[in-house]
């Protein structure tokens, strides 16, 4: 019988912020979105004092001060590093791991002799080695494992691990009865609303609906979710992540950008970063799209959404080619007289750089070799000296207006030599 565990990092971003700040233990912590817009993560204490998810920071400054909330800009360098540490421990300890998000992973424990003991050991080691607390739910299906992990997080008496598979049918029914239908993994907001209108309130109600109706109204995806809730495993752990179909690099600007020169610099930086991501995954792109957006909610401003796609001369991951193409696309996507808030570069038509057919239009092998060697140097310098240490002159220096606003970012304790914790 299949057996899955979901490992879920508790309040992951807030836990990361606390790791090097022990004085924040037991205090409310929130993390803000890019450009310090709104609350995207909260510690339990911040939830208790009533700060909602998505709260716009500028409206809540007063509450932050009143409750002594520690407020952070998002520090993805730190979160990404700690996430990869957690995941590497999981990979060491469990036979098959599917990283599901930055702070969640499924373990396939089918056939493991002592799954509960293993999960307890995983939790103990992750917490000790990385400082990040995790909750683990064990169950016969991934959907149930999600629910079990939620329960493990909420019920302190479980010490962070809940084995639903061993808990018996009555316990499973109780858990489904306590779960609102909209909290079930795979039931989106829209379906939840329709189900509620039909009087389907809990996961248990949903599991008892006629299968025909579920299939008709919610397609085979809904049916899978229903079967999974009944303990029939439909979703397996994908041991190899599906190959990427596109690479996106986009960002909201720290302040509105009108000047085409600044936009060119930003698009260059995005294109260069996207090309770096491509190379890191051994891929090449065949086309590229640039988009620009004015702030939609600022109705007093003239609005423009620009977008242009160009085909690359051949599959490539060579930064200068991709940057040049992005700049050509920007000429189409930019219109003077608008204040842009966001721009991005999307790489399309991705294929492996090694396993593809040669074409007559390809560059001669020695030319490809030279380009590849140059990119290797670029990537290794940037790996060693930090992102952007070596870049095209056009993508220019930091402190440009298009850089993100991150006034309250914590130091990049684990990824930047100049920002290590200083300790006496």
């Amino acid at each position, binding site marked *: 019988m299949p057996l899955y565990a979901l490992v879920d990092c508790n309040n992951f971003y807030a836990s990361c912020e606390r790791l090097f700040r022990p004085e924040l233990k037991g205090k409310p912590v929130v993390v803000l979105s890019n450009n310090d817009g709104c609350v995207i993560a909260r510690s339990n204490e911040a939830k208790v004092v009533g700060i909602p998810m998505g709260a716009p920071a500028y409206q809540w400054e007063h509450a932050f001060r009143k409750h002594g909330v520690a407020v952070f800009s998002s520090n993805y360098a730190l979160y990404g590093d700690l996430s990869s540490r957690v995941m590497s421990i999981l990979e060491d300890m469990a036979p098959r791991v599917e990283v599901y998000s930055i702070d969640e992973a499924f373990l396939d424990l089918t056939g493991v002799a002592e799954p509960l003991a293993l999960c307890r050991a995983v939790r103990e080691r992750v917490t000790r080695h990385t400082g990040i607390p995790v909750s683990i739910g064990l169950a016969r299906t991934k959907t149930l494992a999600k629910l079990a992990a939620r329960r493990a997080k909420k019920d302190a008496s479980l010490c962070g691990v809940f084995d639903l598979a061993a808990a018996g049918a009555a316990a499973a029914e109780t858990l489904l009865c306590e779960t609102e239908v909209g909290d079930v993994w795979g039931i989106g907001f829209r379906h939840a609303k329709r189900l509620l209108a039909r009087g389907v309130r809990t996961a248990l109600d949903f599991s008892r609906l006629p299968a025909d109706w579920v299939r008709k109204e919610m397609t085979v995806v809904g049916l899978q979710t229903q079967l999974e809730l009944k303990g029939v495993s439909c979703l397996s752990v994908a041991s190899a992540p599906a190959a990427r179909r596109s690479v996106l690099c986009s960002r909201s600007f720290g302040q509105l950008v009108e000047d085409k020169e600044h936009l060119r610099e930003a698009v260059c930086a995005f294109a260069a970063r996207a090309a770096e991501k491509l190379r890191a995954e051994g891929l090449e792109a065949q086309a590229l799209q640039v988009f620009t957006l004015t702030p939609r909610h600022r109705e007093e401003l003239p609005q423009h959404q620009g977008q242009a796609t160009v085909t690359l001369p051949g599959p490539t991951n060579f930064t200068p080619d991709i940057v040049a193409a992005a700049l050509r696309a920007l000429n189409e996507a930019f219109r003077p007289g608008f204040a842009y808030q966001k721009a991005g570069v999307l790489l399309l038509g991705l294929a492996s750089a090694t396993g593809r057919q040669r074409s007559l239009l390809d560059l001669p092998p020695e030319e490809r070799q030279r380009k590849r060697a140059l990119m290797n140097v670029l990537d290794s310098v940037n790996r060693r000296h930090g992102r952007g240490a070596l870049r095209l002159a056009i993508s220019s220096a930091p402190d440009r207006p298009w850089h993100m606003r991150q006034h309250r970012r914590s130091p990049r304790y*684990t990824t930047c030599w100049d920002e290590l914790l*200083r*300790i006496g």
Partner: protein
Amino acid sequence: MKLRTNGLELLGPIDMDTAPKMLLPLLLAGVQAGFPSPADDFIDKRLDLNEHLIAHPAATFFVRAVGDSMLGAGIHDGDLLVVDRAVEPSSGRVVMAAIGGELTVKRLERRGERLFLAPANPDYPSFDVTAREDFEIWGVVSHVIHKV
């Protein structure tokens, strides 16, 4: 290839200038019959300091030392400390610990029934941390990297 002279152990060159001009992959070199190539010892990879300094990559963090309270343990102002959270703390080890919400680097010392965080410098006092609820060991300092 190891040589031992006056307590110094030579592990082999790490300087690329002294390595053979063409580096062959290990497998190719092994195909050759007869005597092993004298170059085989060099075809190994170069020494990697990470291997020496980092026993548990997922659990290892770097921090920067400030001040002179741990001079006696060889920790100078500005030194880089390698902190390993996977190592079991024990009396006598230098640890990074939280006390009263602040992180500090001190030596952990058991004196009879009591536990202390002790500086390695007579100018500073020890803290008695026995049964203090706001005391927590963060990790064990495994190496000091000091620039000479």
